[in-house]
């Protein structure tokens, strides 16, 4: 293995950690732990952005890291925790696929993601382009999580994890999107979680539960 400078090693370590966190989220049954893992994922993301900012010296990356920290590590998890407490959803124990099956599908998905990332890796000119495959892997794993869960809260965590992966992909491929776009995306994310919060209350009010099993009646009609 070539001897990379320390910051690149750390960036690679951050990428590997992100992948590990995605798998951990796949196997997690406690919703509180899911949200905590999401917060840790956001923290790793902010660290990676900071490292990249320090390495490349681009000012907007510092801003981006600050934005990620406030939004994804502090504010959104706090919002989600508040929702969990008020709605009383703590467990998501009936996935559609058992843990071993989910893990194996996850591995296949990551391999597929790495293959998908090859042409992009060849094109990108950043130092971190190797991590693009990991970013796509995180996105697809979050997608798998959304598909295989019953509770609405877990699907939301999966959605936010998908956004984390996309953000990491943007960062490793192009040193982040233009600031205005990043601000827009952050705003959208915030509004999405707020809207979801309201939504959950409506669902809970109607069904007394956040199990998505109840939301399947429209399927029988055409």
């Amino acid at each position, binding site marked *: 293995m070539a001897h990379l400078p320390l910051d690149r090693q750390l960036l690679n370590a951050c990428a590997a950690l992100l992948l590990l966190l995605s798998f951990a989220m796949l196997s997690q049954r406690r919703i509180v732990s899911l949200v905590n893992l999401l917060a840790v994922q956001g923290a790793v993301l902010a660290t990676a952005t900071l490292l990249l900012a320090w390495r490349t010296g681009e000012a907007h990356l510092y801003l981006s890291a600050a934005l990620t920290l406030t939004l994804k590590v502090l504010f959104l998890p706090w919002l989600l925790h508040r929702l969990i407490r008020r709605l009383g959803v703590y467990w998501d124990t009936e996935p559609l696929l058992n*843990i071993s099956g989910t893990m194996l599908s996850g591995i296949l998905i990551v391999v597929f993601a790495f293959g998908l990332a090859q042409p992009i890796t060849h094109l990108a000119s950043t130092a971190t382009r190797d991590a693009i495959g990991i970013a796509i892997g995180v996105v697809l794993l979050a997608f798998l999580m959304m598909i295989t869960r019953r509770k609405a809260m877990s699907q939301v965590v999966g959605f936010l994890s998908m956004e984390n992966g996309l953000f990491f992909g943007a960062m490793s491929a192009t040193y982040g999107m233009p600031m205005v776009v990043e601000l827009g995306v952050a705003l959208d994310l915030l509004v999405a979680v707020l809207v979801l919060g309201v939504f959950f209350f409506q669902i809970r009010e109607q069904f007394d539960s956040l199990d998505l099993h109840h939301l399947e009646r429209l399927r029988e009609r055409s």
Partner: protein
Amino acid sequence: MKPVALIAQILEIVIALAAAPLFLGWVNQCRAWLANRRAPSALLPYQNIRKLLHKDAVLAHNASPLFRLAPYIVFGAMAVAAGIIPSLAGRLPLVAAADAIALVGLFATARVFLALAAMDVGTAFGTLGARREMMVGFLAEPALLMVIFVASLISATTALPAIAAHLASQQFVIDPSLAFTAVAFTLVLLAENARIPIDNPATHLELTMIHEAMTLEYSARHLALLEWAGALRLFNYTCIGFALFVPWGMAARDTGPPGLIAAIPVLGLKLLAAGAGLALIETLSAKLRILRAPEFLATAFLFAVLGLLVHVLLAGS
């Protein structure tokens, strides 16, 4: 082969045989301390083995020759493995046979014979233990092979000494793939050696024992050999872990017995740390239901595959 090398090889096996029960005793001591109990002496396993050797063996009427031979075969396999694994030195005569895959095969041989012997007498516990052990082994083997695969991918060889030498010669890098593989290996170690969270080595409760159930019918010298083989197995696995992940401090090539003796303190230090770590993990975990064992091993496999993928992606390009 040169006589010096032969003597060094035999010396290494002897040291391993002698040190294994001590390592087991150290682990038990740490567990006792962590559980706030008075620790038994670290030499207790030796006393156990000595006590057992003095007794008369009692065998069931329907025990076949396999039943009597199995302890010797298991012990022999473990001893040979101890010779192959580079615990003290990297270049010993048995190096030609020190392919990591062959090593896995040796462990598998031991497991198979133990399981066959357990089923030989026809008791319920024996069969129960044998089935569970085979299930755990069957699931742990892919994970172990994947760990070895990643290590050999990094070092471009499956010979354990070569892997160790390659890693020892590099400067320290933060390699996430090695970290993942190390975690996977630890999980496999816990599973294969019947430690918590897969199996409680101190229990004799019918519903929960795996390894103990297989040795239930043995007594006296057979049991002594099996216990020793168990301690050797743990020692071997730990030394494999050292060779794969913490290979510094081994004797240089062609230094003969003096070099080996000089390498003992480093090995001792590593074993102390590993034993304490193992005891810590055992104390912090609870024993899993047997139904959860496949999940545990799937996690180990997952970590190993993750290590592979991360290595291929981040370092292979």
